[in-house]
């Protein structure tokens, strides 16, 4: 498969170009905070409940809130129907996503409580964990959960020996490497890093740099989305 033609990718993007991204803050009524994101072909809804009481109670911590994160793919979100319920992939993604968000949440404010984050992948087109983290981060802010910063995430990878930003499905499936990264852009602290495929050390450094740029653009969009909803509401 040929991925690069005249410096452009299969969907006509440049190597360092993100797909179109749209955040909608507060898309759900009942949740304490929510965010719907469209990221290329991904359609993802994130909701935050809490801080609220922990069930089962033995999970509660005396000095801080616990964070729970559920990444779930809808059975209709992919080409071939997938069996509903958690599989091994989604258990792992839930874990690393939780750990990507956890460092910025000020958990000490809410002892004995839980903050539950639910991320539903309604339509999947590569980079769902990153887009899910982006939405979850905005949903947390929408819920008023105190945080030290916003977490932004994007994937970088390699196709036709070119390091590229924000892979689409074909690039992800048939490309040479895929590396999702999440960070707090303001501090530059990386909270999620995974990689599979083949990267030389030079390519890895390029990829990491590129992910910084990608995350920074996404952080701007997250902030703008929040400002759009809350501008002028400071006094309410």
């Amino acid at each position, binding site marked *: 498969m040929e991925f690069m033609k005249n410096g452009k990718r299969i969907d006509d993007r440049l190597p360092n170009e993100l797909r179109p991204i749209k955040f909608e803050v507060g898309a759900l009524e009942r949740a304490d905070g929510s965010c719907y994101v469209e990221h290329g072909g991904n359609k993802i809804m994130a909701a935050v409940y809490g801080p609220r009481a922990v069930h089962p109670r033995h999970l509660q911590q005396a000095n801080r809130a616990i964070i729970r994160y559920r990444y779930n793919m809808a059975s209709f979100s992919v080409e071939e129907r997938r069996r509903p319920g958690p599989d*091994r992939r989604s258990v792992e993604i839930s874990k690393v996503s939780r750990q990507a968000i956890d460092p910025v949440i000020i958990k000490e404010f809410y002892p004995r409580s839980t903050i539950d984050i639910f991320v539903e992948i309604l339509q999947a087109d590569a980079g769902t964990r990153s887009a899910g983290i982006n939405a979850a981060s905005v949903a947390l802010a929408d819920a008023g959960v105190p945080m030290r910063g916003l977490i932004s995430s994007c994937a970088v990878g390699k196709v036709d020996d070119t390091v590229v930003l924000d892979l689409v499905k074909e690039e992800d499936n048939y490309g040479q490497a895929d590396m999702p990264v999440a960070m707090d852009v303001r501090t530059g602290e990386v909270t999620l*890093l995974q990689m*599979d*495929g*083949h990267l030389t050390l030079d390519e890895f450094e390029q990829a990491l740099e590129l992910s910084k740029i990608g995350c920074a653009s996404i952080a701007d969009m997250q902030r703008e989305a929040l400002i759009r909803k809350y501008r002028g509401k400071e006094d309410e």
Partner: protein
Amino acid sequence: MNDVIAEIKRDYIYELAKRSERADGRALDEYRPIQVEVGLIGKAEGSARVKVGNTQVLVGVKIQPGEPFPDTPDTGVIITNVELVPLASPSFEPGPPDENAIELARVVDRGVRESGAIDLSELTLPDGKVWLIFIDVHVLDHDGNLMDAAALGALAALVHATKPCERYGYGPDAPLPIKESPIAVTAVDLDGEIMLDPSLDEETIASSKLTVISGLQGALAGMQKSGTGTLSVEEIARIVKLASSKAMQIRDDLFGGSTDG
């Protein structure tokens, strides 16, 4: 994996880290002694017991003919599982694999798969079936850094495995088509000091760790950060460089630089 640690021990380890020292006297980039024994389990097509210090894992590889996945009819199948059995640690509980076991298994699997350690296209059989390779990691003693031990065990067991062709009427037994030698190196960062092969205590107090899997040429085949802490871009770059060269050294020591050792 949720072991508790006394605050005094935590302080001690951090104090040592400031002087670039470790509680067990190792250099920061030094592994505990690694021991690999292969072929302990006669009933398995390949097996390896790996000890990294007191950490101990047993990996069994079972190989049998079966149906390929419908979307990849011409390639063999790798299935990796990790059991964190309760005998290995007071913090492990019986029951189906939890998220730690699943993460461990998937990182080991990615290392084998993405590095191209096994040429899966050579695993087809004349009757339309393919070889199914089951890599089962049984953790026996958890004293830190299960990731590297499990990945090493998987590689060693695969390298020494034989396809049971005779038993199923496919001609004489043969080794697996091994093409790469992925080695996992895990690092933690304590107060800016990068430590390889974290002990259980170091792992427990470190807020995050990074596993880097690299192949024969030093190129990266897989990575996984785990834990709720953060790492700076510079720290990550340092760890990756260090891990890639350490992997070369481990490979040379254990396999004499080639995969057919």
